[in-house]
């Protein structure tokens, strides 16, 4: 049976993890490679590295990081953050990334999704969508959720799927950081509407939230950051819980 996936997300700046990760097992908790390896050992199904570096040195730093992760980590990983064209994607995939994720660049230039999918295959192109509900309508937002667009989330998700996206990483800005559960309704809508997997993100606060997003939310995978980093929910305990609740999970 195909399992539901648990995906820790690591925010990286200048080649270091940010958000005050606190792990006693690690000599260097700021090292994204060490942290990734630990998550892989604990049973994470995939990793997402999100680069928030803003400097011009960004690309080189990121390629170096991807190379080190690929050498060390034995599960799939996705890299996102500021990727805008085929050349960026090529450099990261050649360095060993399994998938790349694009967000604002796809909104700005939707044809980039077609180009990337044609060049490298849909399976490695993840389109990240930040969504926020405004007066009852879900709109796509860019720039970390700060900038609203006129695109409606369901229509945009359908469009990028048709353009060749292999997966959708859906982050609900209404739920992100609040820890009161994932956005199950829109996640379920997209999962039913689309022929590609949906990764739900934003709102994980306890173990039941994961169960809910896999059942009510029909998500194929669930992503979270701080609750894993701060060990509020250890991955082995989460997987044990989900298995007990009848969710198909890799153990």
């Amino acid at each position, binding site marked *: 049976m*195909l399992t539901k996936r648990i995906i820790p997300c690591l925010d990286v700046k200048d080649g270091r993890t940010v958000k005050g990760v606190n792990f006693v097992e690690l000599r260097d908790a700021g090292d994204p490679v060490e942290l990734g390896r630990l998550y892989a050992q604990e049973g994470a*199904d995939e990793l997402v590295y999100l680069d928030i570096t803003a400097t011009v040195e960004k690309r080189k730093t990121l390629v170096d990081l991807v190379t080190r992760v690929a050498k060390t980590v*034995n599960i799939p990983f996705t890299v996102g953050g500021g990727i805008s064209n085929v050349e960026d994607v090529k450099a990261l995939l050649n360095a060993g990334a*399994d998938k790349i994720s694009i967000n604002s660049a796809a909104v700005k230039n939707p044809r980039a999704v077609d180009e990337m999918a044609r060049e490298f295959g849909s*399976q490695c192109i993840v389109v990240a969508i930040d969504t926020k509900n405004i007066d009852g309508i879900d709109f796509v937002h860019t720039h970390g959720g700060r900038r609203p667009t006129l695109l409606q989330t369901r229509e945009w998700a359908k469009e990028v799927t048709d353009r060749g996206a292999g997966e959708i990483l859906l982050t609900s800005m209404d739920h992100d950081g609040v820890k009161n559960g994932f956005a199950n309704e829109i996640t379920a809508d997209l999962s039913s509407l689309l022929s*590609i997997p949906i990764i739900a993100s934003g709102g994980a606060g306890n173990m039941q939230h994961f169960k809910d997003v896999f059942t009510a939310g029909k998500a*194929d995978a669930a992503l979270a950051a701080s609750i894993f980093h701060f060990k509020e929910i250890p991955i082995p305990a989460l997987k044990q819980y989900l298995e007990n609740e009848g969710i198909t999970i890799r153990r």
Partner: protein
Amino acid sequence: MDVAVIKYNAGNVQSVLYAMERLGANATLTDDWETIKKSDKVVFPGQGEASTAMKYLRERKLDQLIQSLEQPFFGICLGLQLLCEHSEEYDTSCLGVFPIRVKKFPSVEKVPHMGWNNLEHLKSPLLKGLTDSDYVYYVHSYYAEVDPRYTIATSHYMHDFSALLHRDNYYAMQAHPEKSSRVGETILTNFLNL
């Protein structure tokens, strides 16, 4: 242990090289006949599209080389599909090591089949130490049909398909052992120990 990883127009070969290095093998990415022939083991990785890959292999006569090798040989992902007789992907005639047809998953469920799925009906020294509760990582839209003569493990997505194949010195796996954590490392280690 010298491992030749066949260089052709397939994506994501770097991860296979890194996985070999992690297991202590000396892996080289090469399309040189002599280097491949002399190596202890040969790995045929791949991610991409079947007809383009076969065209590339034929143009460089790597198809004939692959068919003539005698050392343990391991096809991964697209590598497995190319070792079969024929692929529905652009109606492509493949290498024919396994007289099996490669078909596209129906779009009843989400395609590609992406994520972790377990191995079933395991029967091979290549799978020593593993059981049907072990999971491997898949990303594929096409699958090889089950043939009891050559299928040494199955997985189930909508229906059973060949997870691993074996014939003589040729082994092949549809999932990505290089991305399948401990289970993948067990399979690669078993292959290196053949």
